[in-house]
């Protein structure tokens, strides 16, 4: 008898979804709902093509999930919404003007390679959407990194090339290609960054929509406040304290760093992914702080302009280690049940 509870607890602690399998759909669909406002802002600012990108991502993700589960001989659980979330998150970190094959390839990669080769829902090491984004960044460097078009300014489905227009890249918010340095682009005011009237990826443009969605998830208990607070707080402080190597007017402007780029999206929706973040509360705090630290380091000192994606992926990799070192002292003791967040 002594073995049974221990075994049960092991299963619970290794499961990503603390509320038990019957609640996965509820959690997932709530997250989907929390993501909707940011998407609406994206559609509003970038045009209807964005809807097509989101649709392609979600449809491919769901189809790939169903196909993989079928191939692996598992029951098909696409209704739980986890593939839908992956699709939406992937769309949110893509440029608004990507050609159609990028969302398709990315979503298929996210589900089939990042998620199912590691064992499907709950077993993936990295956030599928972010890993797919990193994959796309090296697979199709041109459309993702430099060849951005501002749909909003060009009108629906018309495209203009980026060079002499004002900054189309949110990733240029920090520092993009040399192209962008030469373009000498302006600093956006806080208000338009908060609302989202700035260039960027589909879902990361509007900070306020992301904050609202994130706060709702924290309120519902699906997201632990330690991750976003640690993430944003660390980035905020370090952006002010560290000497930047970049020469831009906003280099040491902490508000700018926090509002710009994918930081809000990353802090509230990507880093808080239950599967790929630590299980203990202390671990979650370390995770958030690590993400913030790496983000600022990459933005200040590395070749890439934006560091949110890679910082979260690196911390995802470190998650098992964090879990091991923040394990509650007494195994099986009820003091801090692993996964008892929220």
């Amino acid at each position, binding site marked *: 008898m002594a073995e049974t509870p221990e075994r049960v607890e092991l299963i619970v602690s290794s499961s990503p979804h603390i509320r038990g399998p019957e609640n996965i759909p509820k959690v997932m669909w709530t997250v989907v709902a929390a993501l909707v406002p940011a998407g609406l802002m994206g559609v509003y600012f970038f045009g209807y093509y964005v809807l097509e990108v989101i649709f392609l991502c979600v449809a491919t993700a769901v189809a790939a999930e169903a196909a993989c589960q079928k191939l692996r001989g598992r029951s098909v659980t696409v209704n739980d919404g986890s593939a839908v979330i992956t699709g939406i998150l992937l769309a949110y970190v893509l440029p608004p003007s990507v050609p159609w094959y990028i969302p398709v390839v990315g979503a298929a990669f996210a589900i089939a*390679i990042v998620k199912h*080769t590691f064992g499907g829902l709950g077993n993936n090491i990295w956030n599928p959407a972010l890993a797919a984004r990193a*994959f796309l960044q*090296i*697979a199709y460097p041109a459309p993702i990194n430099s060849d951005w078009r501002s749909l909003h300014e060009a009108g629906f489905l018309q495209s203009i090339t980026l060079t002499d227009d004002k900054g189309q890249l949110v990733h240029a918010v920090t520092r993009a290609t040399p192209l962008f340095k030469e373009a000498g682009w302006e600093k956006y005011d806080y208000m338009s960054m908060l609302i989202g009237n700035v260039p960027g990826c589909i879902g990361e443009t509007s900070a306020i929509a992301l904050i609202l969605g994130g706060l709702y998830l924290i309120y519902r208990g699906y997201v632990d406040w330690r991750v976003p607070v640690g993430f944003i707080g660390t980035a905020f402080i370090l952006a002010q304290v560290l000497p930047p190597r970049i020469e831009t007017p906003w280099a040491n402007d902490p508000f700018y760093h926090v509002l710009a780029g994918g930081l809000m999206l990353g802090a509230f929706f990507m880093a808080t992914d239950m599967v790929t973040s630590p299980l203990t509360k202390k671990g979650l705090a370390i995770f958030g702080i690590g993400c913030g630290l790496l983000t600022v380091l990459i933005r200040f000192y590395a070749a890439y302009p934006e560091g949110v994606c890679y910082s979260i992926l690196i911390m995802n990799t470190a998650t098992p280690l964090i879990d091991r070192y923040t394990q509650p002292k007494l195994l099986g003791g009820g003091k801090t049940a692993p996964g008892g967040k929220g």
Partner: protein
Amino acid sequence: MNKEHTIIQEFTKGLFAHNPLFVALLGMCPSLAVTTSVRNGLAMGMAVILVITLSNVLISLIRNQIPKAVRIPCFIVVIAAFVTMVELLMKAYLPPEINESLGIFIPLIVVNCVIMYRAEDFASKHGVFRSAIDGIGMGAGFTLALATLSTIREAIGVGTILGVKISETYQPASVMIMAPGAFLGLGLLLAYFNWRRLRKGEKA
């Protein structure tokens, strides 16, 4: 590896059942590095076939003279001799761009584990003829594996096969000809072959 193998089996085991890359997971380093294009993969494969066959034959010939304690250095000397020949031949007769892209990986055939494995495991225990057949089979299996991997990588990463464009509209995903693409491609191929083996095991 018992004696009951027929000559045909001695050859075909290298192709499928004991494929050095997909089953034994040997020679991964050159496989990952040179399979950026089909031409490179084939050139590498040819070099390996030559070296493994010749070294198998020679090692099998002198297998009773090699002292047990220093057999590995002896194998390496034999293999290195053949690799040097092959390298000089390739430099003389193959287009320079192939030599350039294969670069260090041709001299490194000396320490290719496929060849060491066959020398240690087969040639030093079997007759000359069987060793030659085994070398050709293993080399062909390695070449087959390289060709498979490099076809996939070149097709997806550049959009060509042997330099011929597949489709005008295809957008190449350049990641496949970079290092991550090598690991992804090999990993997925291994998964496929393992899956097939498991299925066969289930049926049998």
